């Protein structure tokens, strides 16, 4: 146990150290692409960390986390759109602090309303309902022509915040990185607090917690709202990174990817979600590189067989899906489980 702990502490230090230093190195080497990749990794890590609070520590299998991220992203896109093109004066603004406040408040509100309904149910109902509510938001934004419907919306201006310039890749990166560290510390604090003990107790044995006198429903709802608000915040960062928002950000495949990160990284571990988002980004990038590399070898045969060109950019989903299936079937406890060594 102690050895496992120290090993995961070492892993934490190494990973956070790399994340703190590498992007600056990439930038110095004029490799902006990798700075962008690291930014995405870190932002996804924040969303995964927030999901870990309810999924990992709360045992609530939410399959709708992308909705919060998407809401957070639209909370940047919509005000910027109106500040540039007029209309909807109440929200029109390019003030980043306003964007973040909006992202956090609206996603928390959405979490409160949907959570109040979802948390009345258990097990597989909960999975499907969180999924359905996320899809509701997805279809809602598809139906709104003002914001580009399913084509989405280009954000022509980044959020304006004091001291730093988010259009500078490194500025955005270090804001995201600092946010990630804050998110990790926040979740750690919550999990270890009296509230967190109740949340974890309710994961292990909700009935016992009820007969002890805890209103389990309320504790879970509060956790759900905190998690949703954090994910909304990560969405605001993501919008600034992508410079573009669309309903696809809340597609259920996105929610599935967040679950992938939390579970493959290691459920209910401090570092698991970041390991998961790292693994995801590396796989996404690496598999595409492998696919590109294979393309010349496979393409002629494919063209001869099917009479059309290969579209290798999406095929990385095939090995990714297979890895996912194999990981579920054969690897228990995620990467953190492997790092700790043996059973936990």
């Amino acid at each position, binding site marked *: 146990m102690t050895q496992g702990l120290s090993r995961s502490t070492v892993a934490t230090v190494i990973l956070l150290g790399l994340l703190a230093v590498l992007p600056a190195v990439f930038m110095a080497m004029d490799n902006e692409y990798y700075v962008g990749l690291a930014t995405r990794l870190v932002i996804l890590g924040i969303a995964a960390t927030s999901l870990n609070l309810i*999924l990992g520590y709360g045992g609530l*299998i939410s*399959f709708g986390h992308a909705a919060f991220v998407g809401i957070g992203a639209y909370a940047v896109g919509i005000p910027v759109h109106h500040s540039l093109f007029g209309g909807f004066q109440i929200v029109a603004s390019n003030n980043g602090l306003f964007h973040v406040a909006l992202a956090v408040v609206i996603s928390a509100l959405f979490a409160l309303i*949907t959570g109040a*309904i979802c948390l*009345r*149910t258990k*097990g*597989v*109902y909960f*999975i*499907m*309902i969180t*999924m*359905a*509510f996320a*899809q*509701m938001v997805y*279809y*809602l934004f*598809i*139906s*709104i022509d003002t914001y580009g419907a399913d084509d989405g919306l280009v954000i022509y201006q980044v959020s304006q915040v004091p001291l730093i310039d988010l259009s500078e890749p490194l500025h955005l990166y270090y804001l995201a990185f600092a946010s990630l560290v804050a998110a990790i510390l926040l979740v750690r604090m919550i999990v270890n607090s009296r509230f967190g003990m109740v949340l974890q107790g309710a994961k292990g044995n909700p009935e016992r917690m009820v007969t002890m006198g805890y209103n389990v429903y309320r504790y879970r709802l509060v956790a759900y709202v905190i998690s949703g608000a954090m994910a909304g915040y990560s969405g605001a960062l993501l919008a600034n990174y992508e410079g573009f928002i669309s309903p696809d950000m809340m597609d*259920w*495949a996105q929610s*599935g990817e967040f*679950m*992938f990160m939390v*579970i493959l990284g290691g459920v209910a571990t401090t570092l698991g979600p970041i390991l998961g988002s790292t693994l995801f980004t590396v796989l996404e990038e690496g598999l595409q590189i492998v696919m590109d590399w294979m393309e010349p070898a496979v393409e002629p045969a494919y063209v001869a067989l*099917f009479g*059309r060109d290969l*579209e290798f950019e*999406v*095929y990385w*989903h*095939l090995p*990714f*899906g*297979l*890895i*996912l*299936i194999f990981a*579920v*079937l054969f690897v228990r406890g995620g990467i953190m489980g492997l790092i700790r060594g043996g059973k936990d």
Partner: protein
Amino acid sequence: MDPALLVLQTINGLQLGLLLFLVASGLTLVFGILDFVNLAHGALYMLGAFICASFTIALDNFLLAILIALPLTAFAGFVIERLVARNLYQRDHLDQVLATFGLILVIDTCVHIFWGPAGMAVPLPDWMEGQVRITEDIVLPTYRLLIIFTGLVTAALLYWLVNRTRLGMLIRAGASNRRMVGALGIDIQTLFTFVFALGAMLAGLAGMLISPITEASIGMGNNIIITAFVVIIVGGIGSMKGAFIGAMLIGLIDTLGRSFLDSIFALFMSTAAAETSAPAVSAMLIYIIMAVVLVLRPQGLFPPKVR
């Protein structure tokens, strides 16, 4: 409101409802009996559509294509059950959700590789293309009536299978008490495989039936699966009756909402306001219905008796 349009949209709603039932019934059977959450159920719907599309074009015969595609989709279900699903029955729902999510990615990409990124149109035989004139104003497309007819016949067959046959008795017994069926010496694994393949075939049939209207396309399964979830949540997970009534309810509400919500809204707000808000509300309508049902009955309209 135009009465002819109302009739037409009601027919469309029934048609959607019956297709949803075909997808949801397999989902609810598999969940009820195997306690297995299969996100990839929608992928079988898509697979059915593509297989049928290819055979329709190759053979120039839609009906024959369906007859060939049905056992092939059932076989796809069989393979998935043997290779993946079977190893997950004893796992928690989280593992099942994640692995079947992986399965969706795999199947979607395979379809992409074999059939290409574009959708496939499915030509109908001439006699299905026509229209049926009911009254002076009301003209209905033949094919949609055929879908409704097929859906109703399938639902009736399913009802007969589950309620009137020995196999159905085992299925129902397996849903409420898995161990007992096992203890009675029935080969539960084979029963599971059969149910899984049956569910796959039903989903595939729904995909085949819709493909002449919408084309077979990647992602079609992912759109319908969530609506099918809404159906079984509203109906009560594990209940066939719930799946049927839930499907009809959701099919009708969704279709009619999209067509008439703006005129209903216009009754109590300005036309402009109605025209902006109606699309947004109708996009959310079935989810709002779901939320209302859950608040009133957290187990759905027809919760199965033993759970």
